[in-house]
């Protein structure tokens, strides 16, 4: 049923779908309606991290080390948490400087050094080749195995085949052709490939679905869920050992080393850099990817252990390679459709990796290795060619083909000696060598080119000696004695136990020595050398990227140039139409109608250089631009001055910003204070006019009666007595009013005198009742008291409290009906307070006036008919007094139901005189 042609047709159909997606993505990008401009596509495309290593290799690794396959995914999860600090910075730097690859990044940081760019490219190509060969091995193995369906056989059992009948060779060439079609159809100054990213995101979905499908089939179809598989495995001693770490499953040291190396790989693998940095549409997409990408890793790893154990239990030991369990389990269960889906999933994983990786590498090879060399060869007269964009594309296409061929040869050479994961780890350790130069470069200004060069070289050499060469040895290309006896038979130089270091596995061993050499040389070299002018300015541009504006690099240039020279230079590499568009945009941004009207100043030169940097790398761009314009070299001191000035300006503007913010705050404060003052002023005016009004009422009546008495001497005695009585009463009222106004003024200004002592509130209440007894008698109002015999003491001013209670009592009397009136005064203890209630059976107060009666001069009642019965200051004063002692005063009442005025006084915290 699964004949060869079915598999091949399906594979081509799948590649066709990918191509269609990429084509559609490019079309949409050209139309300005990007389909990849969202964080979900960005996160999915980052999952290009999961290659056939994950798809086939994880199960193989799990079959021999249990959970030991997992650090490769835990590392990236941890690193994702640091992306906000590290990756965001790298993305910003790359966007500002038009950086298109990791080699370009390092070269640009260390003074646009062509040498460094070339070195990084060489390391990357050599380091990644094993990784590419891993993909070829996985795809060709799965293809060969699938062709045997329904028989399960291992490909190594089929024997050696010559190159021309080796499926891996054709797969390599097919992938090369596919990648060339995919990634190098046209030249873009930013090296962005929207269609490719869309296809990669699609592939990430396919491989996840395929893996989950086979995982679910094994876990729930062949066995009864996770618990069943693990409990059966626990019954077999050999498998039981895989359930924990240690011994067979590797040590904690290996675990930590793998976590560390994968943390670095997720940042510095050329394809991860391409997807995460170069293809990034919007920095903000990174935020969601920080958790979505680890979530993808979690999802694709859930079924690895069940499949591994399922395979180990299903096949007799040693008959089937554990790296192929994902495919062979469905085949053994006669599930051709599922097996085909798995094959397509694996193909997805492989093509995704190969496409992005080789495109990234070909950009590096072209921009940082071949072009600088070609430009140096004067005999080629490249400087005179009108359009070089075709040449650039040609170089990239050849680079892709050659890289895949190299991958194929490594596979022929060393592929069978290692499991998939072990091959991949060789590459991981290689890219880890970039970490010191990049991380150091973005945080440490004093790092220099010499340091970076020394560190990279040392790290790379140690890596090659301890990992790459032994892999040649194992495959018979170098003698085995190299591993067993060391170089020239010197035991200290044994590549796997360098200087006698034993007890670590290969990867940890290589990482330790290479990082030691790399970081050591990097730091020492940086501290021992002096940076050049260009290095200093680039260091500042990289480290301070968040403090600078976009076109900040242009201040560091002095010289003369012509617009036409610059334009023709850029159009040679980008093609005339693209260059014209770019220059036109630039002119528009600077307010000129055509770019020919622009002044050939530093900004334009800088612009031309960044445009070129996108196409041929920053180092070559620097060389090209300096050949086209006349530059006056800046001295180191001048550069330092300019940078200093820039940082001073930045600091100054920060200060200015802060000052203006402070000023704003002060203004707001002043405004509110002013409002408050105005309010107070208005209240004072109101108060004075009310007071004057209140004073005039008694004065008017005093004056009226006095005039009557004066003008009419014949008034009889009774009448005269009555009038004089009124005058006396009104005068008393006047005195009381004036006293209260003065009192209130004192209270409000805080100038009142207080004589606080410990006193019994019960006694105060009794005294107040006694003092007002005459009032009650006069009006015929009954007064009841309910006072507990034991009352804790409070601290307060006796006279003031007396004033409050008398005020409340006299108010109560005033509003009680005569004869039937009844006033009840109650004292009680309530939690930490003493409470006094004065209840009357008068007309009551509407709830809406409950707060108003505590305002000055507010007397509730009909102003027209009722004669005011008091001064309107008693309650406000009482409230002030109670408030002063930390208590509060309020009223509870309803119309026609009487009123209860209450106040509380807090008891001292350690209850003085209490029951204790």
């Amino acid at each position, binding site marked *: 049923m699964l004949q060869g042609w079915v598999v091949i047709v399906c594979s081509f159909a799948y590649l066709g779908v990918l191509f269609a997606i990429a084509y559609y993505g490019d079309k949409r990008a050209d139309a300005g309606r990007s389909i990849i401009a969202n964080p979900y596509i960005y996160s999915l495309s980052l999952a290009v991290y999961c290659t056939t290593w994950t798809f086939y290799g994880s199960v193989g690794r799990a079959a021999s080390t249990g959970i030991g396959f*997992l650090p490769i995914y835990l590392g990236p999860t941890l690193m994702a948490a640091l992306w906000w600090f590290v990756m965001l910075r790298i993305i910003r730097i790359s966007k500002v400087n038009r950086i298109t690859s990791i080699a370009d990044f390092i070269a640009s940081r260390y003074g646009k050094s062509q040498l460094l760019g070339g070195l990084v490219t060489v390391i990357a190509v050599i380091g990644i080749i094993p990784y590419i060969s891993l993909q070829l091995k996985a795809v060709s193995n799965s293809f060969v195995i699938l062709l045997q369906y329904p028989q399960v056989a291992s490909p190594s059992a089929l024997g050696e085949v010559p190159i021309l009948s080796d499926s891996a060779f054709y797969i390599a060439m097919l992938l090369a052709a596919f990648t060339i079609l995919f990634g190098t159809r046209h030249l873009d100054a930013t090296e962005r490939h929207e269609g490719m990213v869309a296809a990669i995101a699609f592939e990430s979905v396919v491989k996840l679905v395929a893996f989950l499908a086979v995982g679910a089939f094994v876990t729930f179809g062949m066995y009864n869920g996770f*618990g069943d598989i*693990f409990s059966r495995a*626990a019954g077999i001693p050999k498998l039981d050992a895989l359930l924990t770490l240690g011994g067979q499953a590797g040590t904690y040291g290996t675990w930590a080393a793998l976590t560390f190396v994968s943390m670095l790989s997720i940042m510095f693998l050329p394809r991860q850099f391409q997807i995460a940095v170069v293809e990034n549409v919007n920095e903000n997409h990174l935020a969601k990817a920080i958790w979505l990408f680890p979530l993808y890793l979690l999802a694709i790893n859930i079924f690895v252990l069940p499949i591994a154990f399922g395979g180990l239990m299903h096949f007799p030991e040693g008959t089937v390679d554990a790296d192929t369990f994902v495919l062979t389990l469905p085949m053994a269960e006669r599930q051709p459709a599922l097996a085909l889906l798995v094959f397509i999933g694996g193909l997805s994983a492989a093509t995704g990796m190969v496409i992005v990786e080789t495109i990234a590498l070909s950009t590096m090879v072209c921009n940082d290795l071949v072009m600088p060399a070609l430009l140096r060869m004067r005999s080629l007269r490249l400087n005179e060619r009108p359009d070089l964009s075709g040449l650039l594309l040609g170089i990239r296409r050849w680079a892709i083909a050659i890289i895949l061929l190299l991958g194929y040869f490594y596979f022929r050479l060393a592929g069978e000696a290692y499991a998939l994961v072990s091959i991949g780890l060789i590459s991981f350790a290689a890219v880890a060598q970039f970490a010191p130069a990049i991380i150091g470069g973005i945080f440490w200004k004093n790092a220099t080119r010499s340091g970076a060069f020394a560190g990279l070289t040392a790290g790379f050499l140690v890596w090659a000696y301890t990992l790459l060469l032994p892999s040649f040895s194992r495959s018979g290309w170098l003698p085995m004695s190299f591993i067993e006896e060391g170089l020239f038979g010197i035991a200290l130089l044994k590549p796997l136990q360098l200087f006698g270091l034993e007890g670590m596995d290969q990867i940890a061993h290589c990482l330790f020595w290479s990082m030691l050499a790399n970081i050591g040389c990097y730091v020492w070299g940086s501290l021992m050398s002096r940076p050049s002018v260009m290095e200093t300015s680039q260091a500042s541009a990289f480290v301070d990227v968040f403090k600078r504006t976009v076109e900040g690099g242009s201040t560091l240039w002095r010289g003369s140039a012509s617009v036409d020279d610059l334009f023709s230079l850029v159009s040679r590499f980008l093609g005339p139409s693209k260059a014209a568009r770019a220059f036109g945009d630039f002119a528009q941004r600077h307010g000129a109608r055509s770019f020919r009207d622009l002044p050939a100043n530093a900004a334009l030169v800088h612009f031309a250089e960044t445009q070129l940097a996108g196409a041929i790398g920053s180092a070559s761009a620097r060389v090209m631009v300096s050949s086209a314009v006349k530059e006056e070299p800046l001295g180191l001191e001048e550069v330092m001055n300019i940078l200093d000035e820039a940082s001073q300006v930045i600091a100054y503007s920060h200060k200015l910003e802060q000052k203006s913010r402070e000023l704003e705050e002060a203004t707001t404060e002043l405004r509110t204070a002013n409002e408050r003052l105005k309010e107070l002023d208005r209240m004072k005016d109101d108060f004075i006019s009310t007071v004057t009004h209140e004073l005039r009422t008694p004065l008017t009546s005093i004056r009226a009666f006095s005039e009557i008495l004066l003008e009419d001497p014949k008034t009889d005695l009774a009448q005269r007595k009555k009038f004089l009585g009124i005058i006396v009463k009104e005068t008393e009222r006047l005195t009381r009013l004036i006293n209260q106004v003065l009192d209130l003024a004192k209270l409000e200004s805080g100038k009142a005198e207080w004589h606080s002592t410990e006193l019994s509130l019960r006694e105060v209440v009794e005294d107040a009742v006694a003092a007002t007894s005459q009032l009650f008698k006069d009006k015929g109002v009954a007064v009841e008291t309910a006072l507990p015999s034991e009352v804790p003491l409070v601290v307060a001013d006796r006279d003031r409290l007396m004033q409050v209670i008398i005020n409340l009592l006299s108010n109560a009397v005033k509003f009680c009906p005569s004869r039937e009136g009844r006033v009840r005064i109650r004292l009680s203890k309530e939690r930490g307070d003493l409470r006094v209630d004065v209840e009357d059976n008068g007309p009551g107060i509407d709830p809406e006036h409950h707060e108003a009666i505590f305002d000055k001069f507010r007397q509730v009642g009909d102003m027209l008919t009722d004669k005011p019965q008091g001064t309107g200051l008693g309650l406000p004063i009482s409230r002030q007094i109670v408030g002063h002692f930390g208590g509060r005063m309020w009223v509870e009442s309803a119309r026609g139901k009487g009123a209860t005025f209450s106040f509380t006084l807090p008891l001292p915290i350690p209850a003085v005189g209490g029951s204790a």
Partner: protein
Amino acid sequence: MQKSSIRGQRLVALFLIGFLLFNYPLLFLFNSGGTVFGIPLLYAYIFGAWGGLIALMALVVEKGR
């Protein structure tokens, strides 16, 4: 910028937590036999801690929006 710097610091804290969870001393505690709902203890611990860490990262990232 203020908010984004706080977010960055929270993420670094999560990195440190994750680093502790997935390394020697804590890992050792769970590196023994026994099962949780039929899943070996070590596997259950690592996948559980991993999922928890991702959930916290999502919380930190999405909260600030």
